[in-house]
Structures are given as structure tokens and as C-alpha cells.
């Protein structure tokens, strides 16, 4: 997980900053709104203090019978203005900025999913599903803090410090410099120091949450096994250990964040104290008027608002960084299936497929990929032929199919379709001509109709019923209260294994492709049903090129040629 420790903060965040820059205008406007909120808060308190002191001095003079004139209307109007401005700009700012962030998140989610869809079968196999979910939701959600918590607030605070320093500096340059300097030190601690304090623990926290999530999902999925074997408590203990690690880090982070908050409060107060101390001296020496002396610490006190958010954000910088880094890794793994620019479309009609000296080296450092490699596999599947590729489980049959439909590319050798290397064919065009029933049945949490229409999006209900008829599910579906609209549960759990299999087969049938590859089409289906389906499938398969992947030939209709695959090597046996 942490093999790339040498990447810098800059490396980790650069792609995301680039992504943010697409919405530059919104971001700047949002930051401007934040600055105006802080400025209004400073203005309100500072002007009020100035006004009260002015009136107190004038009041004392008036009481002593000395004539004094005070402009009460402009300060009064200013105070009211700042009060309203603070409220309005704060509300607008928060709303506007959250909208921006959520827009960015939608962009981010889609673009990351797009990255995932371009990954090849091998990479997909290495990544684990629940970890992906985390990448897509939790990581992106963590990254939402990038602008709203990590970029804009320190910038706004810095501008506010500059503003305060400038304001004080106009009155007495030395005071502006020293108070501004002190605030700058506080700012630096809150940003850099807090980030350093929380880095390790907050990064670990993201990983621990990830582990907790996948272990929890595992436990729910395996509840039947675990409760049958009476080993639930053992699995629970692992979960408990992970949880405890999470809490330990959260406590550590919580205390460090509390430290940051306390320091922010104390720092601002001490800066105000410094302003008053220096201001008092300037006042006594006559360099500064009384009201201006009061204005200074009050303006500094209002800085609290700008600095208070920093500790929370920067103590957890590591979490954001960990997410950014993991998403970067994911994005970097793209392009495993390059498409050439002059990709062509295979000619219409039945397809001819040839494997020429294909070697597939599956060895992946660090990953437990147990599937054996293919070694020097060559064969030709002529147009219209029905070939059964037979072999034990794990012999490499699925790899052959994945090569043909280009879910993976061979390490060496060529896969040719209609005498063209598949790598020179347009991926979309190739896949639209190949129907592939994978060994693992994947149904989506959606209606039966929607699952079937994956095969062909414009299929009519009639076509769906025909496909269901072919797989002998039409009667069953007709008896469902909601028919085609029946929700197919969690990866099709409401269906039995055999039914799910047949739905997946119907989906391939709907796709109506020239090349059909069926991997153990009848697994989980009882013999009688398999026989019925095989009989209906036979005429449908006529004219198409067919590759069956199976461990035996039972029920496979119309096999014209058999190939045996053993430990990744083709044992050619024409006839039997």
C-alpha cells in the first residue's frame, strides 16, 4: 500500500489541483466571498470599538463642558453595513462553495469510473470489489476537503492576516509588522505543524476504515458459513482489532486537533494582546489616537473566525493525501489496453478467430494470482464452426476467451480476428460482435428487463420474452407478479444460481453476435432444463462461430471440433 512513500505532497495533489482548475472561476469567486465574510467580521468589531472609544472621549469632553463634534452617522451606517454584509456573504459563500464542491465530486466520480472501465481484465481481477467502492466514494468524499477545507481557508486566512497587518501598519508600521508576523507564525503552525502532527495517524485511519469496511462486508456475506461453522466469534475478533486501531488513531487525532484549536485561540488572543501592548506605548508617546489604539486589538480578535477552521482541516491532511495517492495509483494503471488510432472494424458476417503462439504470463509481483499461464497456444476457429475448448477448472479456458474479446492482451503471440490482430481493431466494434457468457454470473441490482437489455438496449419486450423462452425462463417470468419488472436482488440473490445463469445466457442471446463464447453455460442448471435449453439454442447458434468453454461436452449442441487445454497447453485432439 505504501510502496510509493517517496512521492511528495506536490506529486500527490497535482492531478487534483489540475482538475480543480477547470472550475477556476467558481473557486475564485468562492474564495472572494470567504474573504468578504472575514473582512466584514473584522470591520464590525474594529469599527464598533473605534466608535465606542471615540464617543467615550467626546462624551467626557462634553461632560466637562468642552465642545466636541462627533460624526455619528457614518460610523453607525458602517457598523450596520458590516453586520448585514457578514450575514449575507457568509450564507451565500457557504451555499455557493458547497455547490461547487459537489459539482467537482460528480465530475470526479464519473472520471474515475471512466478510468476503471478502461482497465483490463487482469487489473480488474487484482483489485477487490469492496476496495473499489471505497475508492469511488470514500476517497472522493475525502478529497472534497481539498478546496473547501485545505485550499481556500489558509489562503483566506493569509489574506486576512495581510489585511490586518496592513490596517495596523497604516496606523503604526511597526505594530503592523510585529502583529502580522506573530499571526503569520500562528498560521504557519496551524497549517504546517498540524499537518505534520496528524499526517501518519490520519493516513492510517483511511486505510483502517477501508479494512473495517471490507471485513464487515465479508462477514455479512459469509454469515451463513460463519454461523454454521460456529466461527463467527473468531471473525468478530479480527473486526474488533481493526476497530480498536481505528479508535486509537481517532483519539490521537482528536487530541492533536484539540491542541491546534487551543493554539489558534491562544495565538489570536496573544496577538491582540501584543497589538494592545504596542498600541498603548504608541498612544502614550502620542503616535496613535485613543480610538485607533482600541481598534487594533479588536480587529485582531476577529481573526479567530479565519483561523479556527485550520486545525481541523490540516490535522487530517494525511487522510486527504492518502486518498489522493490511491486514486492517483488507480489512474496511473490506465491504458493497459491501448487502441491504435487507425483501429478498424471487422467485416460483417461470421467471424474467424485465430490464436498464434499465444503466451500469457500471469505472474504479478505481490499478487496471489493462481490462474496458470497460457503457453504457446495456437488454434484457428473457422467461421461458422462450433468448437469446444475442454479442460479442467483453472486450465486457462477463461483466459482464451478473455484474449479473444480483448479483456486482456497476450504477453507474446497474436490473437487474430478475420485475419487482423485484435489490437488493431476498434475495441467497441470487436466487442459488439462477440457475445461472451463469462464463468462468473454478474447480474445487476436492477429489474429483470434492465438486466436483459444490457444485451441490446433497444430490445422490445417481445424480444426479451423470446430470449427468456430460449433459456426456458419465460414460464417462470410470466408467473412473477411483476413480470419483467421484477427486481433482481443483490447480484441476483433472489434467483437461484441456475436461474441467474440462464438470465445471463438470455442476455448474450439478445446481443445477437456473430461470435458466441459460452463458458460453462449450464453450470447450476439441472440436466433436464439444460437439455431443453440446448435443443432451443442449437438452431439459434446456426451460422454463428461458436466457442464453448467447458469441462465436458455434455449438453453442448452441435460441437464440430474439440480442443483440450491442460495446464495452459493445448493438447490437440481432433475427434475423440
Amino acid at each position, binding site marked *: 500500500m505504501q510502496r510509493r512513500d517517496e512521492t511528495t505532497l506536490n506529486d500527490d495533489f497535482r492531478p487534483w489541483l489540475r482538475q480543480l482548475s477547470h472550475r477556476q472561476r467558481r473557486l475564485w469567486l468562492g474564495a472572494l466571498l470567504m474573504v468578504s465574510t472575514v473582512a466584514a467580521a473584522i470591520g464590525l468589531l474594529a469599527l464598533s470599538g473605534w466608535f465606542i472609544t471615540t464617543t467615550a472621549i467626546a462624551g467626557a469632553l462634553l461632560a466637562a463642558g468642552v465642545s466636541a463634534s462627533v460624526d455619528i452617522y457614518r460610523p453607525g451606517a458602517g457598523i450596520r453595513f458590516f453586520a448585514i454584509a457578514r450575514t449575507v456573504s457568509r450564507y451565500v459563500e457557504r451555499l455557493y462553495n458547497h455547490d461547487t464542491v*459537489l459539482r467537482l465530486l460528480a465530475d470526479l466520480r464519473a472520471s474515475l469510473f471512466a478510468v476503471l472501465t478502461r482497465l483490463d481484465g487482469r487489473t480488474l481481477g487484482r483489485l477487490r470489489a469492496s476496495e473499489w467502492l471505497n475508492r469511488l466514494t470514500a476517497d472522493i468524499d475525502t478529497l472534497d476537503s481539498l478546496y473547501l477545507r485545505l485550499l481556500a481557508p489558509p489562503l483566506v486566512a493569509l489574506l486576512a492576516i495581510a489585511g490586518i497587518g496592513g490596517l495596523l501598519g497604516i496606523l503604526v508600521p511597526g505594530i503592523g509588522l510585529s502583529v502580522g508576523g506573530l499571526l503569520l507564525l500562528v498560521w504557519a503552525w496551524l497549517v504546517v505543524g498540524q499537518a505534520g502532527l496528524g499526517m501518519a495517524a490520519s493516513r492510517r485511519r483511511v486505510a483502517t476504515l477501508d479494512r473495517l469496511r471490507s471485513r464487515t462486508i465479508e462477514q455479512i456475506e*459469509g454469515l451463513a458459513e460463519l454461523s454454521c461453522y460456529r466461527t463467527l466469534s473468531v471473525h468478530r475478533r479480527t473486526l474488533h482489532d481493526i476497530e480498536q486501531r481505528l479508535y486509537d488513531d481517532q483519539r490521537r487525532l482528536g487530541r492533536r486537533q484539540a491542541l491546534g484549536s487551543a493554539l489558534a485561540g491562544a495565538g489570536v488572543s496573544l496577538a491582540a494582546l501584543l497589538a494592545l501592548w504596542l498600541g498603548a506605548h504608541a498612544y502614550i508617546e502620542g503616535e496613535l489616537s485613543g480610538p485607533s489604539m482600541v481598534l487594533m486589538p479588536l480587529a485582531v480578535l476577529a481573526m479567530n473566525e479565519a483561523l479556527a477552521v485550520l486545525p481541523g482541516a490540516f490535522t487530517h491532511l494525511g487522510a486527504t493525501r492518502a486518498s489522493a495517492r490511491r486514486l492517483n495509483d488507480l489512474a496511473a494503471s490506465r491504458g493497459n489496453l491501448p487502441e491504435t488510432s487507425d483501429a478498424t472494424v471487422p467485416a460483417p458476417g461470421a467471424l474467424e478467430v485465430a490464436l498464434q503462439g499465444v503466451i500469457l504470463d500471469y505472474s504479478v509481483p505481490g499478487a496471489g494470482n493462481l490462474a496458470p499461464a497460457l503457453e504457446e497456444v495456437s488454434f484457428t476457429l473457422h467461421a461458422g464452426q462450433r468448437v469446444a475448448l475442454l479442460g479442467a477448472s483453472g486450465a486457462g479456458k477463461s483466459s482464451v476467451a478473455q484474449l479473444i474479446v480483448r479483456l486482456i492482451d497476450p504477453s507474446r503471440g497474436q490473437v487474430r480476428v478475420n485475419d487482423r490482430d485484435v489490437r488493431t481493431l476498434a475495441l467497441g466494434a470487436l466487442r459488439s460482435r462477440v457475445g461472451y457468457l463469462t464463468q462468473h454470473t454478474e447480474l445487476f441490482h436492477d429489474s429483470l428487463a434492465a438486466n436483459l437489455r444490457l444485451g441490446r438496449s433497444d430490445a422490445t419486450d417481445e424480444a426479451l420474452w423470446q430470449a427468456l423462452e430460449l433459456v426456458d425462463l419465460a414460464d417462470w417470468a410470466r408467473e412473477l407478479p411483476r413480470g419483467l419488472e421484477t427486481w433482481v436482488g443483490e447480484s441476483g440473490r433472489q434467483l437461484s444460481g441456475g436461474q441467474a445463469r440462464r438470465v445471463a445466457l438470455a442476455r448474450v442471446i439478445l446481443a445477437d453476435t456473430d461470435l458466441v463464447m459460452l463458458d460453462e453455460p449450464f453450470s447450476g442448471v439441472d440436466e433436464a432444463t439444460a437439455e431443453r435449453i440446448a435443443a432451443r439454442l442449437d438452431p439459434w447458434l446456426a451460422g454463428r462461430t461458436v466457442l464453448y468453454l467447458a469441462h465436458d461436452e455434455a449438453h453442448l449442441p452441435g460441437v464440430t471440433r474439440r480442443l483440450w487445454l491442460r495446464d495452459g497447453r493445448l493438447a490437440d485432439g481432433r475427434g475423440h
Partner: protein
Amino acid sequence: MPPTPAAEDELTPRAWLHLQAREIRGWLWLSSVLGVLAGLMTLLQMALLAWVVSRLIDGEAPPGTLTTAFGALAGVIVLRALAQWGQESAGVEASWRVRRRVRAMLLDHLAALGPTGLSDRHPAGLGGQLVEQVEALDGYFARFLPQLRLVMALPLVLLGVVLWLDWLAGVLLLLAAPLIPLFMALVGMGAERLNREQFVAVTRLAGHFLDRVRGLTTLQLFNRAERSVEEVFVAADDYRRRSMRTLRLAFLSSAVLEFFASVAIAMIAIYIGFGLLGYIRFGPADELTLFSGLLILLLAPEFFQPLRTLAQHYHDRAAALGAADGLVTLLNRPVPDGTEREGWPMPGAFDTPGARIRLSEASVAYPGREGVLGPLSLALEPGQCLAVVGPSGAGKSTLLRLLAGFAHAEQGRVEVVPAAPIAWMDQRPWLVQGSLADNLRLAAPEASDEQLGAALSRVGLDGLLATLPEGLATPLGERGLGVSGGQAQRLALGRVFLSEAPLVLLDEPTANLDEASEAQIVASLRDLKARGRTLVVATHHPALIALADRVLSIERGMLGERTARSHDATP
């Protein structure tokens, strides 16, 4: 141990949160008390500040006294920082304790519900509840609740000081203050409902993602990858629109507060200014001094600050309520009574290595579907093997679930002695993230490496094991994505041979296997049977059927109003 959810049966999310808070009230109080202490330090700091300023302006400041005052100010600031640190830290302590408790409670309940009780829930959604929704409780216990107690105490103290300094200014504060909770309550109610909707959206979004990601290969194969990117965008954008609705209201509550706080400060500043000028001829205004005026001005924001902080944490409360809603719904799910089957109190029963099964006129129904299985009568002795055959979807899996205790017999009796443990294998081989050994030890945590190796050879994976450089420590992907379907199935089956369970329930154990592997497994199962274990196997495969002493054929009866017919047949 199953919990006793009866006490929590009627709980609303709000009441449930209160119940959780009661467990950690010590920490919550500590946090609040330290918060009040920090507030008092702020009061002292402002008073000193106002005093120093007034001494300076009035020109009666002997330099010596001022240095002391500055020193005292610095001391107060440090003390306040300490109290603030303690306040936040105590909240953190409260929060993780609650979350630990809630997670344990949820896991207990999930275990009690069992696989059947959860079959309509997406595991990713449930996982999200246990991770994200429980995490969503954090802010409520760490920040909102301590702040809630603080809000009731600190502003009163400050108000008292302001009233004492100038009662008219105090009245101004008092006028603004009660309106705030009113507005916040109004706004909060709307935000709460929306927040709950948002949680539903987040859960659905999680399910949607996992589903699409798991099926990515299928999406690629059907050229749907690009369109599903759009779907993902639409789902995320829908989430944005939902969130914005919540936020528009959630921010409104703090804006209302902000408005009152700002306007009150402005009014007080103007009132004090006019009072100091002597323009206000009524009330206490002519007694105002620079000290009291400045202190009132400095305390006015502090009066509103606890409320403002509370408003900032208000979304923590809404988030916790939204999460609690989902969690309470889950906790309120009744535990199916089917898990507590009748035992068979026969003393000699435990002497045999196998299980004894009696079914009399037992039938199973799922909500909305009638006659899923049965009525069915059956008797099975230790050392016997029953093969269950029939078309897919006829109810074979339901029978296995009934025997395992996951499904409840609507009618009739089910007796399995002993009821546990059971060796179980689903149609979908369940593998976890971890090594080969981790996956096998799920059935027998104490098993030695030799035993694991033996189990693997029982399922014909010894050859594979020999080729792995890391051996049993070789890691696997979730759902066995690094292994082929047949290998995953054999691996899951390996657990059966590690277990000493008297009853073995297998659902299509050889569905993905070639003949050689199947023969190997049939031989291994025959061996189990010879050792007196009781086997019930749902299968289509002749080799497995041949192993059985008896074959039960379940035909129709899954759909419509027809009830299941079944007959006992001996081969």
C-alpha cells in the same frame, strides 16, 4: 450472543441517541464543564482588556499596574487554551466509546438476524451502515452534545454580567436570544428530514457503485462501460442536488443566527456610542463608562458564540439522526424465531459423529411467495447421505436453509440433533481477502498447516498448492477473482473437510468442476459419510446422486399458488 432487542423495539432514532448518550454522560459533562470554564476565562480576558483600555484612555494608568494586568491577561489566555483543549479531548473520548458500543450492538444483531433475515439487503449497504453511519455519530457525541449543555449555561452567565453592567444592553441581547432557538428549531426540523433522505441516497449510491464495479467486466463486454460512466455521473449529480437541498436549509439556520448576532452587536455598539455621548436620556445609559461599554461590546459576540458553534454542529446532529434512523430500523428488525429450532433432547444423540434429522410436514414460505417448500416429511440418520434433486428454483436451497436453521418452518416440525456446528457450502463460494490459509481457517481457526494441506488434497488442490512459492500464505482476491470459479469452489469446499461438524449441507458442490475434480470430491465425501457424518447435498450430478442413500426429488412449488409436492424415493 443474540441481544435482547425487545427493550429497543419501539425506539425512535431520537430516543435511541439519548440512550447511547446516557452511557457516556460522564465524558459529556466533563467536556461541557471545561467548556464553561473556558468561557469564564474568556469573560475574564475581555474584562481585563476593557479595563486596561479604559485606564489607558482615561489617562490614569500607572505603568506598573498595566504590566501586571498584561501579565494576568497572558495567564488567562493560557488557562483558557488549556480548558479548550480539555473540552475537545473529552468529547473525543465520549464519541469513540459510543461508536464502539453501537458497532458491537449492530454486529450482534446482524448475527442474530442470520443470512435469511438479511437476504433483501445489499451487503455493501449494510457494510456502509456499520462503517459510515456509525462514523456519522461522531460529531453528535464529540461536539454537539457537549455544546448543547454549554449553550444552556454560558450565555446565561454572560447575560448576567451584561445586565449588571447595563440592563438595557442586556435586554437587547435577551430580545435577540430567544428568537434564535425558535428559528433554529423551525429550520432544523426541515433539515432533519432532508438529511435522512440524503442518507438513503448515499446508501443507494454505495450499492449502485459496488454493483456497477462488480459487474464491470460485463459492462465492458456489452460495450456499456461508457454509458455507465454517464449513469455514475447522473447518480452523483442527483446526490449533489439532494445535498444542496439539505444544505440550503442547514445553512439557513446558521444564517438566521448569524443575522441576529451581527445585528445585536451593531445595535449594542450604536446604543453604547450614543449613551456615552449622552444622547440617551433614559435608563442606565448615562452611567455607561468606556470600561462597561467596551466590555459589553466585547461580550456581545461571546454571548452568541456558543450558539453559533452549536449551529455549526447542527449538521452533526442532523447527520446523527439520519444515521440513527437507518441504524434503528436495522436494530428493530425482528430476529426470526426460526433460528431457535426445537432441539432433540436425546442423551445418546451426541455420541455419534453424525446428525439425526426429522422433518414432519414442514413447510417454508417467504413473504409474498406462497408454498416455497413443502409440506415435507423426512428422516435421516447419522452416516446417511441425502441427495436433493429437482429443477433449479424448485426449493432445494430452501430445504438446506431450513436444515441449517436460516429459514423458519411456517408449519410442521424440524428437528436436527445436534443443531450445531454444521459444515455449509453455498452455491456461491465465499472467499475473503487474505491468504489461502485464512480462507480455510474460517471453518477451523485452530487447524494446523498439515490439516489445511490435507483438506486441500481432499478437494484436489494439492497440486496447485505445490506450485505456489508462498504456499498456504498465498493471498487471494475477494470473491476469488485471482482464482477460477472451479478453484474457488474447491477451496470453499476444503473447509467442509476441515470441520468436524456432524451435519454437512452442500448446495451444488460440483457445479463448476471437471470430471476428475468431481470424482476426487465424491470420493472425499464418501469418506466423510463412512465416518458417520450426515450429508445433505443438492445436486444435478449423477456421480453425487450415486453416493446418496436416498434421493429426494423436489419438483415444482416455487411459484404461484401451487404448493410444493415432494416425494421420498430410494434409488
